[in-house]
């Protein structure tokens, strides 16, 4: 716990202004992103206004994957260097990451309802993203179900790393399963015909906006954890001092 106190001060000095910056930047990117996405961008060939879903779907998926990468990297750092702040960063990435995964799945389903005329397809991308959601939930469950949070941090970290190694294999196997067994036709991709610069703008705005928003959420969470830990330590420190004082008085 002594390690915890020394680095967090430096982290706080950096993160309090940094989080404010990220928060405002996120807002400045997302609001225009929403505007351009909904109002000031064109329809797509063959998919019409439905392409607008992409401007919330792709950024959600991106953030979902970025958050898990962060969990994996932070777990590794924590494993090698026993850095307690790395644990808190990983922990704070989990819930937002899971929520964005769910959002990606929901918006993807809405997309699919119009492009494939079905609300859910067990294709490679959908299926592996659903598996990612469960990997997130398993990670969160370890943190939640253990009372000993220090132990929870370390075990969750190991499981996160095992999951990280497996994710490419899972993705590969599900894509293979989809291609070989289902003979799916190619889905419209971003590089397809008719992806104009006017479409790239809302996409990029939302992509970066969501990313900075995630960073803001995670930093706020870690700052809150640091504050809570400091309050807890302070409370524990007061009591013995008071005891000594009362002893001295009598």
């Amino acid at each position, binding site marked *: 716990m002594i390690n915890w106190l020394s680095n967090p001060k430096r982290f706080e000095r950096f993160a309090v202004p940094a989080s404010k910056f990220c928060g405002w930047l996120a807002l400045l990117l997302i609001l225009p992103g929403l505007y351009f996405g909904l109002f000031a961008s064109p329809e797509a060939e063959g998919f019409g206004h439905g392409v607008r879903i992409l401007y919330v779907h792709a950024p959600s998926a991106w953030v979902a994957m970025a958050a898990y990468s962060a969990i994996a990297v932070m777990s590794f750092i924590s494993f090698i260097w026993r850095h307690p702040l790395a644990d808190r960063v990983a922990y704070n990435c989990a819930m937002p990451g899971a929520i964005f995964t769910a959002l990606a799945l929901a918006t993807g389903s809405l997309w699919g309802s119009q492009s494939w005329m079905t609300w859910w397809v067990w294709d490679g991308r959908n299926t592996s993203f659903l598996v990612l959601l469960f990997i997130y*939930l398993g990670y969160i469950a370890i943190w939640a179900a253990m009372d000993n949070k220090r132990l929870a941090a370390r075990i969750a970290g190991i499981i996160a790393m095992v999951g990280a190694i*497996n994710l490419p294999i899972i993705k*590969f196997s*599900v894509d293979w*399963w989809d291609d070989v067994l289902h003979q799916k036709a190619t889905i419209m991709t971003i590089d397809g015909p008719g992806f104009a610069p006017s479409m790239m703008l809302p996409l990029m705005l939302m992509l970066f906006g969501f990313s900075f928003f995630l960073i803001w959420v995670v930093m706020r969470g870690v700052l809150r954890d640091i504050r809570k830990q400091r309050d807890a330590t302070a409370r524990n420190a007061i009591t013995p001092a008071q005891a000594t004082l009362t002893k001295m008085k009598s």
Partner: protein
Amino acid sequence: MTIFGREMILTRRLAGSWLFGLMFFALFATVCAIALGGQRAAMAPIAAPLLWLAMILSVLLAAGPAWQASMPNGFAEQLYLSGKSFAVFAATKAITMWLSIILPLIALSYPLAAMFGLESEAALGTTLSLFIGSPAILAYAMVAGAATLRLAQGGVVIILISLPLLVPTLIFGLSLAQSFEATGFGKDGLALLGISSLSVAAAIPAIAAILQVIMEDG
């Protein structure tokens, strides 16, 4: 001392979990057959998938109690003090669990596959796929079991942690089971063998790390 240690683990393993796993496997298959109406024509196409699911669930359910039984509080510290590495302990445990829990399941899978309407070639393919894929199933079940050692209700979390990791094993296992009649062991067999090897190689160090952590902070 080493042999004695292994014997001790072996007898503990045989104590109860293997029978539990076997009973669940048989019962699950039975209930599936009942749910499907018992018609071979309906069951044969999905026999391999159902047996794979039955196998996975049986192993996952047996893993938790198996760990709890052999890791009472303080055991990790004793093991550490005795000088044995956690990795060797994990590997030994894996072998004994495979022999006592998984082998009976694989043996039972052949008659069950036949009861589900599969011809001998296809039934053999199913059994072979379970045989080759079983190290992967056991590996992830043991990792999840170790991770949930200090949890009160580890069962659900074991399933939540291990099932996503078992997706590739399931996919390649079933592709072997279903293509065996036509192409034999082939590429599908090699792919499954690769998955099993990788899984074991990843799981043993992970289990050792978890045991280490439990000893230090648990």
